[in-house]
């Protein structure tokens, strides 16, 4: 039998870990509510902490709410416990306060390098310093214990920003007693270059370990906040300025926003409007009231989803924005299934097929290749009229993305006016800021008169807001 008190201690230590893990999951965008936390702890205690695979299954059942979250959960679980494994092994040593003597028989590297002759060893003065000794003899367990103690002393788990790492490394080094080694190093720098090198090498090792420890703490405790910060700034960044290195993160962010919108509006779509009287149902209901129809029942009419036609300028100046608009719309296919897309710079063509058959990114590449060039709105609108105007009806929303800079040519506003008359609404999205509208060759001030909505749209937040409004509108 184990000492019950001990097992309780162990249990609470484990549930502490579990709580830290939940924090980590929230950072990975898996929403974990307090109730979920309680369930997870209960499940974990039931299943025990010893069998990792079992624990993973149990926690997955209580914490991951969809197959999408399940994937994130599984990778997060593996990552977290890999990170935590090192830390907790050391922690266990600290708690027991009896580090097992590491079998590190006699020959430590520094001893090997010792000069064989009996010259007075300049490092002798440092011997007896616990930190120096454990560094010199490479005593892993003693070092781990020292580092964990220092970590607890400076509360390294409070780290919240990436840039604080240096500061915490310094604090921990101070707590470890690096000061004495530094003083010795300064002393040797002039008098004994060899000894200086030796001490510096050991200090570098120590610094390396400490940095490692701080980074682990950062990953476990703070990366979530930093991620939020990055996401937030990215969603406000001009789409044209997003560079290649940020694309992966940006795509994740966009997919998340699209999922959110789809979930919100997917549901609202299913609500019904009152239609014709449902005679059978009404009569059945009226049985309760002796045949008097107190509760009329109605046939249900499913509300139609808006049909979207997106017309995108893919000429150099706005190509990047068109790309993001199309990516966003196609990420929303669940709620916007009948989207058709057209691309133009001078000539205009339908590109829906490309998006149906190819992955979005590849399709966009193709579109740019095929229709890129100098802009001519007049010709593009003309092409559109011939191609698809007949299919524009009161259910169609036209989204036109472009800067309305037409190189002084005739923008054919008459065609735009006709489109406005036929369509449910015409939305013009301009990546330029409102201040720039109408300057130079911009026709935007004239164009906006022929649109229901004309908006500046150059970052993800604005884009999401516009699509959100579009989906919330009632017919």
């Amino acid at each position, binding site marked *: 039998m184990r000492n019950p008190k001990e097992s309780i201690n162990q249990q609470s230590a484990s549930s502490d870990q579990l709580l830290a893990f939940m924090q980590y999951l929230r950072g990975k965008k898996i929403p974990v509510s307090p109730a979920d936390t309680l*369930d997870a702890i209960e499940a974990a205690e*039931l299943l025990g902490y010893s069998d990792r695979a079992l624990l993973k*299954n149990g926690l*997955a*059942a*209580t914490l991951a709410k969809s197959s999408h979250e*399940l994937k994130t959960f599984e990778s997060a679980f593996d990552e977290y416990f890999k990170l935590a494994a090192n830390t907790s092994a050391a922690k266990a040593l600290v708690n027991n306060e009896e580090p097992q003597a590491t079998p590190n028989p006699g020959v430590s590297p520094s001893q090997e390098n010792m000069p064989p002759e009996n010259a007075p060893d300049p490092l002798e003065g440092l011997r007896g310093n616990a930190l120096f000794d454990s560094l010199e003899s490479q005593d892993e367990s003693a070092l781990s214990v020292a580092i964990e103690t220092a970590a607890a002393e400076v509360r390294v788990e409070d780290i919240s920003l990436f840039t604080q790492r240096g500061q915490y490394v310094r604090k921990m080094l101070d707590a470890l007693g690096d000061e004495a080694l530094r003083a010795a190093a300064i002393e040797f720098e002039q008098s004994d270059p060899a000894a200086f090198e030796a001490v510096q090498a050991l200090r570098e090792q120590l610094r390396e370990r400490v940095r490692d420890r701080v980074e682990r703490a950062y990953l476990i405790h703070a990366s979530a906040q930093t991620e939020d910060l990055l996401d937030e700034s990215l969603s406000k960044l001009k789409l044209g300025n997003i560079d290649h290195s940020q694309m992966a993160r940006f795509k994740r962010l966009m997919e998340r926003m699209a999922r959110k919108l789809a979930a919100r509006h997917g549901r609202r779509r299913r*609500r019904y409007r009152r239609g014709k009287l449902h005679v059978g149902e009404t009569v059945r209901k009226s*049985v309760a009231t002796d045949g008097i129809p107190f509760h009329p029942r109605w046939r*249900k009419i499913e509300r139609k989803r808006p049909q979207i036609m997106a017309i995108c300028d893919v000429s150099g100046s706005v190509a990047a924005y068109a790309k993001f608009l199309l990516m966003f719309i196609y990420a929303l296919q669940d709620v916007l299934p009948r989207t058709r897309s057209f691309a133009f710079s001078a000539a205009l063509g339908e590109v829906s097929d490309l998006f149906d058959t190819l992955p979005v990114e590849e399709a966009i590449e193709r579109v740019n290749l095929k229709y890129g060039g100098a802009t001519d709105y007049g010709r593009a609108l003309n092409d559109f009229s011939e191609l698809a105007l007949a299919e524009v009806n009161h259910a169609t929303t036209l989204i036109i993305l472009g800067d309305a800079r037409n190189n002084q040519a005739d923008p054919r506003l008459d065609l735009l006016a006709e489109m406005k008359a036929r369509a449910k609404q015409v939305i013009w999205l301009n990546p330029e800021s409102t201040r720039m509208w109408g300057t130079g060759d911009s026709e935007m001030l004239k164009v906006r008169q022929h649109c229901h909505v004309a908006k500046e749209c150059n970052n993800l937040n604005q884009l999401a807001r516009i699509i959100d409004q579009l989906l919330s509108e009632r017919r």
Partner: protein
Amino acid sequence: MPNTDYPSLGEINAIQTAFEGAGYICTTRIATVVKLAAALEKPVLIEGPPGVGKTELAKTCATVVNRPLVRLQCYEGLDESKALYEWKYGKQLLYTQLLKEQLGEILEGAKGLSESMNRLHQFGDVFYSEAFLEPRPLLKAMESDSGGVLLIDEIDKADFEFESLLLEVLSDFQVSIPELGTISAQSKPLVFLTSNDTRDLSDALKRRCLHLHIPFPSVELEARIVASRVPDLSQSLTDQLVRFVHAIRSLDLKKAPAISETIDWAKSLVLLHAKDLDGSLVLDTLNVLLKYEEDIKIAEGQLPKLMATTTV
């Protein structure tokens, strides 16, 4: 705090063996979730592609714990009068007609309206009592005194409003009837909800459930499943067949064949006394496996490649 109601669901190994005995091969993940469901008294939300055995899991569970299975099939327009309870209106009407004379006797000699009313009040709400209550699946599951298994099938087909209706049942195992009060479960049933993921369920519903995602099984697992369901099929043919199905699933199909289709196919091969999986046999029976003409065309085009995967 092991649940005493369902002693057979205590240990994971025991669950696996018991389920296997009932003809359901389950992974450790499935067994773990079943154990948690029994111990934590929480409903299980099972998601996964159609035909991987979501409904079967609940049925098998009922067999294993030897309790009745109450099944509620969801569909658009399902409401409380079909899921929870309904008053027996016809019976109420009939009884009022029959009891008219009794009423006359009771009211005899009463002076004025208020005295008559008072007399009537003495009899309480006779017409809104349990005798006139028609229990529907959810209420039936609550009323069973030895627990049981409640299967709410294809919850994603029901309306959003219906989910809210379920919340009380799922979290507190009780049903509120305005005229009668709250009816709580005598013994808490094991609840399984299945979803084909055609839409997102509400967070409130998800929060109350344990989650189990059943994917298509691995080759080994599926071979075991087929062997347990269709024992007449030879070992080598089972292996060939399962490998073929796995190859087909990797094609871009409208509907990939699920375990139930694999089993159907295995059964038809037994009926045909097949010894070996060859091209013409596959062509003749492909319609058991694939349910769409386009899919069959695609598979036919890839047949030589698919057949190659069946030989080790």
